[in-house]
């Protein structure tokens, strides 16, 4: 099987630490359920990601070098 997470077009997905997450949530003044979602079964997720974790995705962007997106892992 092909591991899509290694593909060059799949951006970097990392599990966010709890303290960093606190900062992100307070920055946007939201609960973690207000974040966009990502399925637990998504092949781009790192193996250690579990339901309830927040994933940080860093994409390369033509206009703003890097675009950062956070997503909540759901089932």
């Amino acid at each position, binding site marked *: 099987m092909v591991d899509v997470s290694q593909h060059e077009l799949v951006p970097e997905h990392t599990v966010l630490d709890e303290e960093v997450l606190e900062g992100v949530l307070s920055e946007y003044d939201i609960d973690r359920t*207000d974040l966009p979602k990502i399925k637990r079964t998504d092949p781009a997720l790192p193996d250690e990601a579990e339901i309830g974790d927040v994933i940080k995705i860093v994409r390369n962007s033509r206009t703003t070098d890097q675009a950062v*997106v956070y997503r909540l892992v759901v089932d």
Partner: protein
Amino acid sequence: MMRNSTPKDIGSINFGLMEPEEYREMSATKIITADTYDDDGFPIDMGLMDPRLGVIDPGLECKTCGKHSGSCNGHFGHIELAAPVIHVGFTKLIRRLLRGTCRECSKLLLTEDEREEFRGDIDRSRKLGRDLNDVTKAAIRQARKKDRCPFCGEVQYDIEHEKPTTYYEVQQVLTSEYSQRIAGAMQGDEEEGIERTTPDELAAKTDIDLTRINEILSGSFRPRESQRKAIEKALNIDLTDEDTNKLMPSDIRDWFENIPDEDIEVLGIDAERSRPEWMILTVLPVPPVTARPSITLDNGQRSEDDLTHKLVDIIRINQRFMENREAGAPQLIIEDLWELLQYHVTTFMDNEISGTPPARHRSGRPLKTLSQRLKGKEGRFRGSLSGKRVNFSARTVISPDPTLSLNEVGVPDRVATEMTQTMNVTERNVTEARRFVSNGPEGHPGANYVRRPDGRRLKVTEKNCEELAEKVDPGWEVNRHLIDGDIVIFNRQPSLHRMSIMAHEVVVMPYKTFRLNTVVCPPYNADFDGDEMNMHALQNEEARAEARVLMRVQEQILSPRFGGNIIGAIQDHISGTYLLTHENPRFNETQALDLLRATRIDELPDPSGIDDEGEPFWTGQDVFSELLPDDLNLEFVGTLGDTVVIEDGQLVEGTIAEDEVGAFDGEIVDTITKVYGNTRARIFINEVSTLAMRTIMHFGFSIGIDDETVPDEAEARIQETIDDAYDQVQELIEAYERNELESLPGRTIDETVEMKIMQTLGRVRENAGDIAEEHFDDDNPAVVMAESGARGGLLNLTQMAGCVGQQAVRGERINRGYEDRTLSHYKPNDLSAEAHGFVENSYTSGLSPREFFFHAMGGREGLVDTAVRTSKSGYLQRRLINALSELEAQYDGTVRDTSDTIVQFEFGEDGTSPVMVSSGDENDIDVDHIADRVLDSEFESAEEREEFLGTKRRPTNLSEHADSRRVSDAPEVTSDD
């Protein structure tokens, strides 16, 4: 009334079921008679038109609230139903609850552990904003699996739902023919190799006494359930029949009444607000008469609303039901009446239920009942709430007026005298206001109404206008006519993008059409073949200010669709600038001034040169350059593939055509908008279009048949290429028939020959076009239009002068019509060009009848295609808009929906507006360097700078129109605002 009520904030809305007692409490009266009016035309008490239900006739007083028609909203009544009936809107939920709860003790068939799990699931779903239905469905599925109630141990049966409102309990019971079935199975079947079974063997297999077996076989003993199962297993047969037991609404109601509150909470139902038994109606609310007004026809007869008709039916059946029951009618009749009552109540709420014949009017038209009033395009939501007909709007045909600015709209005087703007009279405008009033409603800058400080509205008439004008004082309001400079909103449907609705300034004009500058046709996608447009007059200062700042045409020059300008020169404007600059013609002073007369330029620059006769002249490029900003520098590859060079606002080289000044990404317009601002761009576009019109009038521009006719010699050459191609096609056909043709990879031989013929014939048109083109001069109007990009292309020219070419349907040569041939003129299986829609004539030479027919076939496909495309894309657009309508860009830069869920962390992932960005690679902006330079010049010490940078705020999108968009050299600009 509206003026005095304060707007209120809605804190929250709760949806739930209504308790029968609540219906009775809010009811103004119980309804018992199906009649509406008595012989004298008065409403009958406790009838469907009871005066306590509200008033519709003007002048009467409401018996409940004392208000008059218009201010009384009406009051509900109620009907006491003789027997409970099921509410059609809840049939699915009723089915679910029947399946998920115990038939004996009504408890939810889930153990405490399972309940805990589903409660957790519901909480999670709520938080994530998911559909709760998925969880409850899963809970019911789990509960249905139970054969016995975990609490009382009662056996549970399957519930069958017969749409729309009947429920059955399905029990598996022993069939009455059990003895025959057993005997039959014991016979065995030789063909299928099933052996005979003797009663002894059966007794041994099933562990049942032999005498019992014999009793069973004789039919004198009914086997018990365990015995039945043993026999079924031994003989591999089914001894059961389904027995259905109908659940009456009253049974269901009793069942639901016993469901404990905490059990339905597991299913996400709030028992406080919605008890399940309330889904079975015992009381029917009767809508107020204001919701079902009766109309008096011309002949004095009253015609009742569909809802009233339906209510009459319900009351009649209800009464019959009661009478029959009291008279002790047989159960069968009662059940029939019950079903009829159910049918009427069902169709009262929804008359489009599948499987139920719709209730009809006497004329055969289906009744429009409650659900039909709400549903669909003309329903309450889409038809009356989201889309309303509004006041202060006008609609008429549009026509062009190139003398207007692109910001303006010509408004017919009769529209201007009908639509008004509210003027709050103060000390400063009181004389003005009096002048409007004294002009009356007919004279143009007049007034139609005034409002006195006490709130009384007076109509201004020809008779009282002079008198009224003297009374007008500060504190009054005057509804004055539209005058030049007022801002209005202008719209053309379909409103597909934001430029379909823009704000214009009024110019009052004679005649009956709205006039607009031709350069605003592209954003509206308008033409003047009978298009109509809508205008809306704005009614408060806030709206007018917003429209002026955000919606004015000049603010919309750049389209967010592609980041370029959508407003610019079109059609003849482009031909005009092309004629002006292409061969750089010379103009004498009078001519040059004439070209520029509609612009701000009233003094010519130094002449471009002196001609042989000693007269000074100005070149087209120099005339054009007068319109450019003085310090504009540009260099790019233009429409004709040449380089366009602008140095210090002077066109040095190149032709001005579509890619330079056209709508849809005209480089010069785009640059001016982005660098010099919208106002400068507006001036430029206005002036380019008037200059172009003057130019085209100077040179004259027309097109006729002779402009597309080629000399005989060229015609002969075209014929020659066509004949050549025919020969090649013939060769291909012959090779195909001799089976010598080699097929292309992945194609059959048939496909290959088709493709090769198509290619050959495709080349013919190209060659014919090339030949025709050689014979056209550069000043041929069709060539000018094609080259400049004003209208049409080389293909149109080719088809007019050379050869129309192959006609196609579905991307293939025309193959339809008769069996093996397209028309009866050809032999069957004729593969020739002629027989499959090749048109060798040109539009000028004229098509032969057969060619014409094939051409019509191809043309038809195009028409059908566009019709299908517009309807498909319209629906797609509607769905997309509905899906995205609640997304909003927030002040912190995120995009969120109404529940504050984040959709994008930064608008578009980069926080930039497409119209504020220049996407070209060549003009890379070094933001850091510019920022440093500004900071260095602004702050003397490093500390000051540090202090400033430390307090930097997050960027907001509060104002998209930063000062940088203003025109820097203000005095140069004479605004037409």
